């Protein structure tokens, strides 16, 4: 699936397909022509992706083929033992987690799950976790603390689920509790925004010693559409709102909200899972190795200082 601003690439891809159909076994000049077309495609893609607007970045972050938490687990971990349930109400499929091994590091992986096929998407509420999801996440974090293993969270959600049941079971309390407990957690926490970092639903598992972000991910206090409909009184002004909200990885690095950007392959993570996983793994291992050396006391005090400094300007 190509996005609307990728029309030029799609057109070249069409030409390549046509060319291949006409010349199933190209030789000589035809090979050269095919190579030229491939180059043209790569250049175009590079050109488009090197100057994405914030609103275009939102489209990439929400791309239906973008790697989801299961892809990251498959791509990064040699073992994953999934754990279920919050021990209070149920098991939220919109938030998954469990023990995982990344190279020689044993960690607790937790993150939003959007789902791939429609029935799976519905089961996990399109990655909008419910209170039981946040409470499951907290349960697993406390378990990680007990077992002295680091926590790695994968953030990819449009936001916490805005439903009647979610309100009645304390969506606000569940997120608030996580913020407080994560601040005090005596084990390293690395948070990675892989796709959509949607507001309270994202920060509910986002209080990390290190916060990383894929280069085409976004992280925002409100969706651009939501902001546009409130402040512009016009939901179609989402592109303007996306601009104003400063939601791209680059802006957030400048604002010192995130610590490092994980570069995606040209054309976005969805075009090349293998490279995306390789890069993510490298950055993740670097931070895991260095955080594992820090004492729990120092970790929590540094984590406090990090978040206390956010929005302190004078």
């Amino acid at each position, binding site marked *: 699936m190509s996005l609307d601003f990728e029309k030029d690439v799609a057109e070249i891809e069409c030409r390549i397909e046509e060319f291949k159909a006409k010349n199933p076994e190209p030789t000589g000049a035809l090979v050269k022509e095919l190579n030229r077309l491939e180059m043209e495609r790569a250049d175009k893609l590079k050109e488009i992706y090197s100057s994405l607007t914030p609103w275009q970045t939102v489209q990439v972050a929400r791309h239906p083929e973008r790697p989801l938490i299961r892809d990251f687990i498959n791509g990064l971990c040699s073992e994953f033992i999934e754990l279920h349930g919050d021990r209070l109400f149920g098991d939220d499929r919109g938030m998954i987690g469990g023990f995982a091994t990344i190279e020689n590091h044993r960690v607790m992986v937790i993150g939003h799950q959007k789902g791939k096929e429609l029935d799976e998407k519905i089961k996990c509420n399109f990655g909008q976790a419910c209170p039981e999801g946040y409470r499951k996440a907290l349960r697993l974090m406390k378990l990680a603390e007990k077992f002295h293993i680091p926590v790695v969270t994968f953030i990819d959600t449009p936001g916490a689920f805005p439903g009647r049941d979610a309100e009645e079971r304390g969506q*606000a309390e569940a997120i*608030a509790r996580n913020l407080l407990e994560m601040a005090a957690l005596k084990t390293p926490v690395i948070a990675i925004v892989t796709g959509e970092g949607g507001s309270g639903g994202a920060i509910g598992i986002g209080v990390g010693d290190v916060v990383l972000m894929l280069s085409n991910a976004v992280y925002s206090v409100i969706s651009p559409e939501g902001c546009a409909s409130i402040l512009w009184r016009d939901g179609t002004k989402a592109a303007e709102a996306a601009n104003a909200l400063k939601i791209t990885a680059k802006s957030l690095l400048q604002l010192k909200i995130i610590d490092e950007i994980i570069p995606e392959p040209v054309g976005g993570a969805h075009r090349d899972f293998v490279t995306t996983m390789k890069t993510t793994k490298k950055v993740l291992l670097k931070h895991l190795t260095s955080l594992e050396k820090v004492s729990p006391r120092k970790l929590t005090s540094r984590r406090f200082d990090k978040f206390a400094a956010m929005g302190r300007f004078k």
Partner: protein
Amino acid sequence: MAWFHKSKEIAAKPESPKKEDIWIQCPSCKAHIYKDEWGKNLKVCDRCHFHERLTWKERVDVLLDEGTFVELNAKVSWNDPLKFSDSKGPYAEKAVENCEKTGMKESVATGAGKINGIKVAIAIMDFRFMGGSLASGTGEKILQTALYAIRHKLPYIILSASGGARMHEGIISLMQMPKTCAALAQLREANLPYISIMTDPTTGGVSASFAMVGDIHIAEPRSLIGFAGRRVIEETIKQKLPEDFQTAEYLVDHGFVDMIVHRKDMKDMLSKILKYAGCR
């Protein structure tokens, strides 16, 4: 002569006072209430117990012993880290307008004072300042007051009145949620009591952060308390929500608020609870 005098009297009589000068209409049940009565009743309707929103100064008068309030962090103000502008113009202009309108620099006032002789650290949100929204200055003041409480071994009371995080400061506003909660985690570590008072409204990023992690949760009657907005939820689930959805009473029923306390009883209730927490 009598008729002459009388007519002169009538001529001299000042215009009869307007209805609005004497009466106030309850915004909820529409009952007419004497203005004096309304003030004496702390802006609560006698008939339906509707609690009007109060300014932070009115809250100080209602809750703290006279003359005991000392303001802290008064210099902390709003910021414009994103240089934000929307269809109505720059955020900076809007913020300045709100400062002029309220005499505040941010949506919360913080300080220390006494409740029936018990010294407390207190943060009071004021809905008049940009809907009481949570932004960098708000978070910083709430954090600094928590640290003050820790330094002076005081209980901490926060009165929330907020529509949620302020969009104009973008992600910085969102980060005030973990920031304030991190400060409250330190307060917990110091074993100091934290009482959260939810007033109308306590929603969005405020309900999903410091307002919901109190040792004790108290709400004013009929306050709106919730995470997502009613309209958003109705659109999501394609259902009409019950009338009392997200009211303080509804939250008591669902186990998220300890008690609903009438404004006139709030001060005494706070001092009673603080005594159980060992404060004096």
